């Protein structure tokens, strides 16, 4: 089982924000979507998902709302706030810079 520390630090936030930018989802759906889009590479433990979500909520980047699911059960749906959108842009940009830099370094070593 993969622990969040296996992810590059802070990446989980970025992933969650990105996923929620597409559409509001509940926790379970988020975990499914994570697996789906990352092709099981970035497996996030079910356990560490919720603390991360709660932290994002406290930051004001996402907001939660209780809504009925398709099979009529109550679930907590998270959606991106305006603040969250801005945060996503910032983090995405930072990630791109970082990964570019790392990619270059890695290539250097191989050459």
């Amino acid at each position: 089982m993969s622990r969040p520390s296996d992810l590059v630090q802070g990446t989980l936030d970025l992933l969650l924000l990105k996923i929620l930018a597409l559409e509001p989802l509940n926790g379970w759906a988020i975990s499914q979507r994570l697996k789906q889009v990352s092709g099981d590479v970035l497996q996030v433990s079910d356990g560490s998902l919720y603390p991360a979500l709660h932290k994002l909520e406290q930051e004001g980047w996402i907001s939660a709302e209780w809504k009925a699911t398709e099979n009529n059960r109550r679930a907590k749906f998270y959606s991106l706030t305006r603040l969250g959108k801005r945060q996503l842009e910032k983090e995405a940009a930072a990630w791109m810079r970082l990964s570019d830099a790392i990619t270059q370094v890695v290539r250097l070593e191989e050459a």
Partner: protein
Amino acid sequence: MRLEHWWYAVPLRLRSLFQRRRVEDELDEELQFHLDRKIEGLIVQGLTPEAARKAALRSMDGLTQRKEECRDARGWNFIEHIVQDIRYALRVLLKSPGFTVVAIATLALAIGANAVVFGIFNGLLLRPLAVPRAESLWGTVYGEGSGWQSYLNYIDLRDRNRSFEELAAWNFAFVGLDTGKQAVPSTGYATTANYFEVLQVKPYAGRFFRASDDHGAGSMPYVVLTWAYWHAHFHDDRAVVGRTIKINKHPYTIIGVAPPEFRGTLLFGTPDFFMPVVDQDLVNGGRELTTRGTDHALFETFGHLKPGVTVAQAEADLNAVSAYLRKTYPKESGTRKSTLAHVGLTAFTRPVRAFVAGLMLLAGMILLAACANLGNLFAARAADRSRELALRLALGASRIRVVRALLTEAVLVALAGGAAGLWVSVSLLQGMSTWQPFRGAPLQIPVAPDARIYAVSLALALVSGLLFGIVPLRQVLRTDPYQIVKAGSSGPGRRITMRDLLLASQIAICAVLVTSSLVALRGLARSMQSHYGFEPQSTVLASINLSMAGYNSDRAPAMQRRMIDALQNIPGVEQVGMVNNYPPLVYTAAFRTNIFKEDATDFKPANAVSRPYKYDVSPGYFRAAGTALVAGRDFSWHDDKDAPRVAVVNCEFARRMFGSVTGAGGRYFRATDGVRVQVVGIVDDGKYLSLTEDQEPAIFFPFQQSPLSFSHMIVRTTRDPQQIAAAMRRRIHELDGGLPVETQSWKTLLDVVLFPARAATMALGVLGGMGAMLSITGIFGMAAYSVSRRLKELGIRMAIGAQRREVLHAALGRALKVLALGSIAGLALGILASRVLASIVYQATPRDPFVLAAAVLVMSLLGLVATWAPAQRALSLDPLTLLREE
């Protein structure tokens, strides 16, 4: 953080704080939803429900821990940590109860002192009268400075000023109030008819008189009761409205009751009733209302300033009207300037403000000293606990967390001390506000505590907690855990530490307080022994207002003579004398008169050569009062209305007017009405209005030549004053059964004059005592600490043969040095500060060798007391045991 962040975060935090249950339930539900979906999925994959449930739980990687992480994310940590800090601090504090109790008691004293002083400040200066728009209500200052004290001047001022919306005025009415049985001496306000309209007070029952009721004297025989009087005498009976009561035998109809919170326009007392000022002469039998030159027809004139008018503009306006009056009535109008003061304290505003400011300063110093003291204690403790703190740091506690733990301790101590101090001070203030310092005078100190006192005490407690809490922080933040755990102490001490400075300044502050209170005590002791010019011992005074029994001033002298004769016949009475109005030094009521040279022709106030105090006295007054006759003769019963005008003067008057005491006898001057008066006797100088006054001239006239119905009988006796007083009341009632008589000793009445000095001395004494206690605990703390820190060193010194003196020097030398330096600084400051005291306390001279010696003695004694126990401990050390222990 940006605002938008808080927009989201604050409601969430509040929710998790106040709807904890619901938030917890939601967390459970959210996780359960996840688990259920997971289980469903696993069952679809072919697991049994039981296996699927277990697998789902496993995938959560510890459900409880995850929940805890979610709670952490919600910001619960912050609160939890505070609770943890408080619990830890309580544990630590309870582990050293002695320290905790001393710290709390120190702060309770300091904060209590400040709360009381603030309560006085709040009651006297912050809290306005209970009337609408009190802040724009201004009055002309009473006394010498005003010039608006005659009713005619008030009328002119009311009609000619352009600064006030409307002007009202009032005077005290000391009358006999008869509600059906017997006339009882009562204090009320005689007010202008527009009084309540100007104040915008609404009646509690019935109605008030109005400006439209006023058609001159006797046109509105109405009286309004204060709520307190109505409550006490009529038991809240609303049916009294419409009833008739008698004021000095004249019938008045009760038309209303004032609301409970309205207690007249002077903060110091509660009147019994309000009556029309235009009836003053009718009731008292005088001619005050029609005399323009009088100083005492009105006590205060006041009103709301018009919007936009500043106080300075209004004062200029008043002085312009004053100039007009002086031109129009040169004989009756003085050249005095008008100033304005907030209604409530009038002319007392400045002295009260100075007194309260002085007290606040001293109380603030107490608090500072207490903080320095506690800062020292906490620093010493932090040094003792350096190993524990270092260990916590080494084990990974953040410095912030350690700092917070220490600050929490300090704040807890501060809050406990604050609460204790507040409790004491609130009960003290409550006592003060119901206390009536003088019998017969409706004086009160309006300092009942309110919410502000609680707020201020809380703020003081928090601020002082943080103040002394930060003292040890530098030390903690500097700490290198590795060094301390290894070496066991905080490294070599510096030559002058922060703690030395703190202690020295604390002792300096305490020495200032001790010196000031000694100066005050000495001043009071001196003023008690000062030369009054009369002998208040073995006298009984009877206050008799003949107008209360319906006598006017024409009939008064005959009746007064009969009373004097009747009293003279009481066995054991040595001498009876009488003085109109008040004797010297009673109720700070003394009247001055204008005196002109014998050859003067224009008797306008500006031409007066002297303004001595004036007394109208009976033959025998000087002997009854114990005033020595220096030259000439006393008055006789022949000095009556038809005889030539004569006067007795004091030595000061003789010196100023005629150049010498011996040359004054038989000389002439002219009285305020221009009549030629001959000096027939000269008496000893004395005090007249207050004990602080410089030597003032005084002049005495025979009472038959200026009759008045209000007077004091002075009876000098060798017998028990109580018995004589009873006999006096009996004799006077035999003459007129309806005449209220009040008897008191002159000594008791002097209490009123001495009250400010006594109050100031008491306050300073208490503060000085607190200062002394603080310096004892401060020095003791430091000495005890330095002995306990150096036990080992002292043990070694003793083991290798140090003498007692050397051991003491090593153990306590530093504490004593700090004490000496602090005391010297404090003494110097105290002498400077005493100049300020001179304004409150009589004869406060800081350069008094007695005071200096006493201050030095007190500080040395304090040092001795405080270092005694630590010195004993240092001397009783057994080096063997000590060295074996380590």
